[in-house]
């Protein structure tokens, strides 16, 4: 601690041959031991950062938040990400950065009278969005539900029997693109936000992986990359966007983006195209002529966990 100013100088010739060598050397030894322990502890403490830093270039470390990037900076980042994909996977991917269309707010509706629970939507999501293959990740979870309840906790997601079981109903759940998204509220670094067309997005390069958003989401719609996603080169979808299905790093959150790399180009989402029953309806909520608006006006529509005030842009409906 505080050192006495008149303490004898260490390692002086006198002390070496003095009558009390033990006191001097003990002090030195303790200091040395303390310094060594301290250094070791410090090295141990920062080891993960050192490991992590090995994967992160200076450019990546100094990259700004998505919404502060100039078009030139974004072009440079996209070039870097495309080069990384080519180097790591040998795949020439194309990463775009499509912006929200003026006059468009996306809405999705799902017909519970028609869905048979075949899980083709979840599979299509897995392939479209370059999800980690070993964990079978997907933004969609299909619940086999007891009739008479909407309690997700009573739902079963691992069923393997032929479907549809007439005693059950099937409810695919993905990001509800809430107008009042709790996941956005809790993010400590503003790495996730709601875009003008209603899609809640994540900047994978800004996310710190704290998983607060995963805990806050009442629909269990967010996923965490526990490992660096593994996708065989021949299965990588090369049509990518910065905010959606580009190859994600380890330790960041991800979520359904209504396939914005498709939908912002006017296409239907992959999960809708894969649906063999036509249970899914997608479109522009601001267009009164759209199919989604017809559903909202003419069907028995509800939103999941309405009482939480999240105001989803994802709707469920019945035929009868």
């Amino acid at each position: 601690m505080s050192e006495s100013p008149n303490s004898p100088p260490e390692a002086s010739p006198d002390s070496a041959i003095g009558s009390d060598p033990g006191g001097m050397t003990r002090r030195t030894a303790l200091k040395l031991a303390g310094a060594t322990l301290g250094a070791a502890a410090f090295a141990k403490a920062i080891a993960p950062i050192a490991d992590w830093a090995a994967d992160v270039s200076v450019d990546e470390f100094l990259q700004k938040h998505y919404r502060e990037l100039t078009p030139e900076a974004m072009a440079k980042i996209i070039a870097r990400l495309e080069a990384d994909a080519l180097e790591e996977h040998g795949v020439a991917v194309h990463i775009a950065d499509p912006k929200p269309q003026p006059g468009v707010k996306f809405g999705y509706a799902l017909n519970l009278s028609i869905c048979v629970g075949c899980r083709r939507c979840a599979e299509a999501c897995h392939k479209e969005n370059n999800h980690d293959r070993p964990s079978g990740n997907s933004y969609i979870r299909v619940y086999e539900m007891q009739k008479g309840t909407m309690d997700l906790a009573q739902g079963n997601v691992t069923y393997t029997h032929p479907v549809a079981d007439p005693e059950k109903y099937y409810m695919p759940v993905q990001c509800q693109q809430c107008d009042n998204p709790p996941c956005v509220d809790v993010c400590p670094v503003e790495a996730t936000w709601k875009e003008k067309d209603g899609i809640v997005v994540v900047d994978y390069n800004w996310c710190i992986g704290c998983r607060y958003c995963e805990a806050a989401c009442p629909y269990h719609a967010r996923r965490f990359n526990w490992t660096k996603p593994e996708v065989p080169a021949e299965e990588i979808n090369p049509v990518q966007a910065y905010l959606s299905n580009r190859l994600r790093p380890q330790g960041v959150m991800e979520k359904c983006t209504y396939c914005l790399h498709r939908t912002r180009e006017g296409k239907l989402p992959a999960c809708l195209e894969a649906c063999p029953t036509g249970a899914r309806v997608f479109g522009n909520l601001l267009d009164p002529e759209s199919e989604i608006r017809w559903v909202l006006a003419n069907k028995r529509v509800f939103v999941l966990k309405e009482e939480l005030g999240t105001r989803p842009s994802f709707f469920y409906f019945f035929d009868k």
Partner: protein
Amino acid sequence: MKAPRYLSAFVVVALCTAGAWALRAGVTAPGSDPVVAPSSLTASSELAGATRLRHAVNIRSGPATPKVLTNSLNHGGAPVPVACATCHTTRAPNLALHASEDLKEFHQGLAYQHGAQSCLSCHNATNYDTLRRADGTSVDYPRVIELCAQCHGPQYRDFKAGAHGGMTGHWDLARGPRERNTCVDCHDPHAPAFPKVRPVFVPVDRGAVQQAQRAAAHPVSDSAHE
């Protein structure tokens, strides 16, 4: 039972890509096609004050006029297909028959589960190469949707509104076209209830995966502890 249905789906897809079809909504047959005329699909809409070009919503055609395989083989060894009329013009229709089990030749083993309909509710006894509306007028096979719509009004209403039936392509018709299924792409007309299917893509147990990864990463240390 299943294979022919998938085959017919293939035929349907091949046919719809092969030619220009009368069912091409609002583009090839404007005004003349009563099948699909919902304003949301065909009318050009004004959004944000600008009139926009709308791409087509192409509804897949129903099947081509079917043929029946006979026991005779052609030079290549394949069964010879004949038109329905080949046999049916030579014999009188038997209105009393309701099930394929009652037939002495052809069409046996046809799984039939479509309410109380009989064969001649939909098949046209005066021209077997066409289908028959309830009022006795004929409908060509590719326009089978008109036949189904007679009884299944709510489904047809939803279909016209874009809320029934699978589709691919564009939600934004200002940017590209859309392809839509017709009734018999998903519903077997002889047994229209959607069949049970084996679910795909069973979720992976993350705990089991992590355990396997750990075991793979430390095989030596695990054995050293024993």
